[in-house]
């Protein structure tokens, strides 16, 4: 038997929004004269589907069908400011910007609807594109009729804008302490990796990844799963395959083409199981928090732990290549001495540099 199976787990957390905040997103919305909704924002959809997510948020905030909503993120002339698509901020911060804009538009629709129906706006709601009296569903008027009346009778453009911005969190440079939360929310996840290690070749195959993500609210579960599955494969690449500098720290012998850089491909795809938990955030749109970036963080440690479970070695430099596996197996066979210091057992005594580093500010030699 040269192939051994093992399982490892990892749990992670990840913040929503730029570290220390101070990163606004803005949006504005206008209604066409038939009630159709134009949303303008500077958010860039880098493939994660933020335009669809934001359209879903606008549709439900307004109470109109999803296919009424068009989102334009195409240029900086018509769109409002957005800090950018990074820091896992699109659904939460960009989503809050469109939600706030939609709430203003909703408020104005209800006011005009109230005038036309002669009912207090507080007694009205918007359902499937119609302003309806609460408790009297026969008293209603279409949002399209309201937009038409605004345009042609009242001489008004129904519009609204929203800005999502959390105050910058200053920090104490000595302690790192901050006065307000330096994030908009925190998401959590756990991952179990099942692997097979070939002790003859050092090859590691990931057989299955089971992953649980708390995303607050899955605005679109299919796209959340897409992030989890796509992130998992990126994490598998981090754990086992990818390296810009094969002889790091040397900068020589870099790849420069797909054929000499090992990114994961379909043949590396393990069985994937996703479980979504919804522990809502206080401030996110519909309770959502981020999923984007964290999706490739849990797999490398889960894979490393699974390899330990399978064959009893720790590889602590990524990627865990066959060469590193075989060298670690050789070291294990040779045995390791146990060390003690100040009467305490010290495990994995790898000649850390941090003590000497703090003692001397200059001319420190790291243990290499």
């Amino acid at each position: 038997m040269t192939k051994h199976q093992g399982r490892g787990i990892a749990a992670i957390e990840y913040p929503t929004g730029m570290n220390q905040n101070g990163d606004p997103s803005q949006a504005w919305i206008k209604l066409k004269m038939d009630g159709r909704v134009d949303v303008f924002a500077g958010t860039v959809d880098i493939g994660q589907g933020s335009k669809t997510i934001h359209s879903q948020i606008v549709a439900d905030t307004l109470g109109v069908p999803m296919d009424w909503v068009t989102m334009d993120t195409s240029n900086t002339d018509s769109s409002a400011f957005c800090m950018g698509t990074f820091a896992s901020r699109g659904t939460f911060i960009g989503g809050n910007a469109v939600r706030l804009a939609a709430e203003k538009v909703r408020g104005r629709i209800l006011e005009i609807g109230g005038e036309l129906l002669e009912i207090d706006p507080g007694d009205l709601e918007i359902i499937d594109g119609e302003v309806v009296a609460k408790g009297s569903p026969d008293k209603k008027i279409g949002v399209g009729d309201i937009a038409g009346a605004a345009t042609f009778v009242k001489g008004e453009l129904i519009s609204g804008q929203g800005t999502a911005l959390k105050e910058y969190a200053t920090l104490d440079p000595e302690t790192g302490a901050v006065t307000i939360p330096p994030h908009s929310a925190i998401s959590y996840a756990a991952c179990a990796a099942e692997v097979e290690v070939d002790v003859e070749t050092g090859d590691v195959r990931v057989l299955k990844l089971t992953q649980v993500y708390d995303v607050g609210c899955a605005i679109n579960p299919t796209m959340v799963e897409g992030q989890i599955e796509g992130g998992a494969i990126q994490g598998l690449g981090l754990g086992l395959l990818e390296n810009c500098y094969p002889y790091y720290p040397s900068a020589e012998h870099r790849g420069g083409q797909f054929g000499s850089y090992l990114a994961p491909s379909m043949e590396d795809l393990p069985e994937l199981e996703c479980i979504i938990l919804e522990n809502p955030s206080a401030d996110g749109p519909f309770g959502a928090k981020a999923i984007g970036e964290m999706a490739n963080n849990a797999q490398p440690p889960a894979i490393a732990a699974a390899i330990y479970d399978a064959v009893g070695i720790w590889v602590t430099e990524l990627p865990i290549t066959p060469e590193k596996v075989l060298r670690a197996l050789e070291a294990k066979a040779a045995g390791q001495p146990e060390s003690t210091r100040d009467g305490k057992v010290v495990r994995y005594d790898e000649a850390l540099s941090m003590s000497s580093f703090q003692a001397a500010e200059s001319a420190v030699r790291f243990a290499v």
Partner: protein
Amino acid sequence: MKAVGARLPRYDATEHVTSGTRYVDDVRIPGTLWAKALRSPHDNAEILSIDTSKAEAMAGVHAVVTFKDVHKNVHGHIEGLGIPGDEPLLAETHVRYKGQPIAAVAADSEALAQRATEAIEVTYKVLPALFDVRKAFDADAPQAHHWGNWYPHFEGEMDRRQIRKGDIEQAFADADVIVQGTYRPAAIEHVPLETQVCQVVPEAGGRFVVYSATQAMYFSMGVVAAHLNWPLNKLKFVGGTTGGGFGGKVDTATETITTLLAIKSHRPVRWRWTRAEEFLFSSTRAAWHMEIADAVTKDGWILGRKMLTLHDAGAFARFSPYGVTKHAFHHTGAYTIPNLEFNGFVVYTNRTPSTAMRGFGVTSVSFATETHLERIAQTLGMDPLEVRMKNATRIGDTSPNGIPYTDPSTVPVMQALSGAVGIELPAHYRTMTSAIRSGEDLPGHLVAQLGNPEDH
């Protein structure tokens, strides 16, 4: 029908898989010139002279730009966050990594632009290069920058990002076992299918339209405007469609130089990096060196953590100080450790600068802390799940920055995972919630770190 929570198709999915999506490189405007850059062949060298006259004299070459054409050549992309610029748009007197742009050319064809860059004559004085972050602090190390080999401007004047919480020496005095480890994830590529690309088109009235694959239109527009000293209304960014970014297209790698070429040539200009340029000269995820020593009790409580992080920034800081700060804020992972001493350094080396990538600053620490936690469990002979549940962040616990957690989910995600893979948790951990600590889940060493001790 409710849209939120529905499994609706992505608006662009069909177009992506049937090649209907129009990316930046699909924008074709007649009369467009091609850009190419002359890049440094050396890891570290002084530039003694740059002579562009032969390239400028070539038929079909419409513009050559160097540092002399840039109003503000050194602009830090996050100067607004107090991180000063250290990277020239086009090298002036020094190159610090192989591939650093020195000059750029706009010509009638891509091949001609390439030949023109090869006609630019640059003389260098080659210097020794630094590649190993662990040698950067040696007195005889090669110099990456004249101010030293690590970033000196955290909060203005600090040469490191540090966290200090609780009483770290007491934690180590109280520990039964000290578990140490070193963790070193590699630098990796973003590997977007679409390489770095942009197209800049001069318009009537003196405006320039920038077709960009950036992940952040306003951010990138601000970068171009700052280099040119232009108001924002002279530029229009057209984007919103990116063929793979993962953090690498926050860099604004092409837009400014291409705009300079469009200004100088009065023509539309496209700059599209080759696959080799994308692999070798576009920024990477950083390599990290992380050392952890944890003070642990024999029943699995983590009393304290000392950590040293060396972040291999490459030749320039870019977003690295931000990334190391985020890393520091999350260096206890999904757990609460009450006594902390963290030091993180942004170390310069003479390699391609690193930048943001999915999980920026935290991907590294997730690997280090989780692997370390497994090794703690193995050292103590405990179930790693039990160590996790015990130290899991709970409501009212405080972060490394002293902020109370309000809605942590370490406990429920671990419980759900255990159920999914068939791990039988002990009854105490099966029924545990994220509620405020009490009883046997509130040992003495955790009392002092609580956000509101009177709640317990």
